[in-house]
């Protein structure tokens, strides 16, 4: 061809490794492949230097694997498609999910239509239709527990979002020791709720508690009068304070991720346009971090609707029923009154509420992302 005569010849092709066929044949035999179809790939110049030696690690490993694999397994694995292997890996997770989440959900739905009592397993189970739902939705005590839950969820989410975002905004400014402070702030989130509940109970003690002493020092009120867990007015706030203390770092972490994702050039462009810090905050920082804030609100909202451990450890629903949130009422119905059918109906009501809430947030999140 004209123009190609003067081209420099390429590197000479490496001759096929004479020993390669001998090495592949035993492996092919064990894998039940036709030996005439098993031709080792022609080695490239670079790989030839590695593969032409009979004693490479890869060769030895392949031979050892072929020798060690039982014939039955070889045939079975060779017969599986990629899709089947994918299912094989996913199957344990799906089975666990079905056993732990999906089956109990459907079982609870079934029980909610019956008069089943867990303390009388041999008693006849009768279908009561919508009777359990009717009782749950007309019970003033359960209605009151819903209001307590709403109060608790509203204030915890509000406080956690405001304080968490403020902390994230501060931590996002690079200052000396910010990594240390980030770690320190995150510690409460890493503790077990059982531990937190127990030690805050001691902190709230009027006689020996540090919290009471601190408040007394700042306000001059005698410690004996600071009954955080015993007072009808203060007990709900005692739980709100503990939950906020524990979970604000979580909100802070999500908000911090949102703040770190905002590119610097947007702020630089705003600086060029002489936008004030206040304007930058409301026009850049807040809108761009909003999907993350909403995500944090969604996670905390769903978690707080189910809050049980902290309330149970701190007040157990008392004094009276002041802090009896829905999950405590549910536990009393299920394991003290042993009204399993009715408590299942109550659990389904809560589930539908949380499911609906999740739908709203997913919709809102999509809308924010589209902007």
């Amino acid at each position, binding site marked *: 061809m004209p123009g190609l005569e003067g081209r420099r010849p390429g590197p000479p092709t490496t001759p096929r490794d004479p020993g390669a066929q001998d090495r592949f044949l035993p492996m092919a035999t064990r894998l039940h492949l036709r030996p005439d179809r098993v031709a080792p790939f022609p080695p490239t110049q670079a790989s030839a230097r590695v593969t032409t030696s009979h004693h490479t690690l890869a060769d030895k490993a392949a031979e050892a694997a072929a020798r060690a694999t039982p014939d039955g397994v070889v045939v079975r694995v060779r017969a599986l498609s990629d899709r089947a292997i994918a299912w094989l890996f996913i199957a344990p997770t799906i089975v666990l999910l079905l056993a732990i989440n999906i089956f109990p959900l459907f079982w609870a739905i079934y029980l909610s239509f019956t008069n089943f009592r867990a303390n009388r397993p041999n008693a006849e189970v009768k279908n009561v239709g919508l009777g359990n*739902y009717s009782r749950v*939705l*007309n019970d*003033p005590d359960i*209605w009151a527990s*819903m*209001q307590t*839950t*709403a109060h608790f969820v509203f204030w915890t989410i509000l406080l956690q979002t405001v304080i968490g975002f403020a902390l994230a905004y501060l931590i996002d400014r690079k200052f000396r020791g910010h990594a240390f402070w980030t770690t320190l702030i995150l510690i409460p989130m890493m503790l077990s709720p059982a531990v937190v509940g127990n030690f805050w109970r001691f902190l709230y003690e009027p006689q020996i508690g540090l919290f009471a002493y601190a408040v007394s020092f700042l306000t001059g009120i005698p410690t004996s009068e600071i009954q955080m867990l015993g007072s009808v007015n203060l007990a709900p706030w005692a739980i709100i304070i503990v939950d906020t203390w524990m979970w604000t770092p979580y909100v802070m972490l999500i908000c911090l991720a949102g703040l770190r994702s905002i590119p610097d050039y947007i702020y630089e462009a705003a600086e060029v346009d002489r936008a004030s810090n206040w304007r930058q905050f409301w026009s850049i920082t807040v809108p761009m971090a909003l999907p993350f804030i909403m995500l944090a609100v969604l996670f905390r909202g769903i978690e707080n609707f189910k809050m049980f451990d902290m309330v149970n450890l701190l007040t157990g629903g008392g004094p009276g029923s002041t802090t009896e949130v829905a999950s405590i009422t549910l536990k009393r119905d299920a394991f003290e009154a042993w009204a399993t059918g009715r408590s299942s109906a109550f659990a389904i*009501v809560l589930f*539908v*509420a949380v*499911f*609906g*809430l999740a*739908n*709203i947030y997913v*919709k809102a999140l999509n809308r924010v992302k589209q902007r």
Partner: protein
Amino acid sequence: MSDPLLTPQSPALPPRRRPFFLRRGPMEAVAVTVIALGFLMLFQPFALVLYTYSLITLLVGTFMFMIVSKFPE
């Protein structure tokens, strides 16, 4: 037969919009409003009757959302 190039044709009509009840955007908004209403009814402290009908409102809204979110954009 007349030449199709010379036959006067009606101007191209804009594509017909799907009816309101089959449009994803507005129907999702309606479903979310129903869910929000049911949620407020469940947790409000004013009337027991609103609490009683909150579950059915929530269920209607949730099922509606699940269906209309499958509609094409």
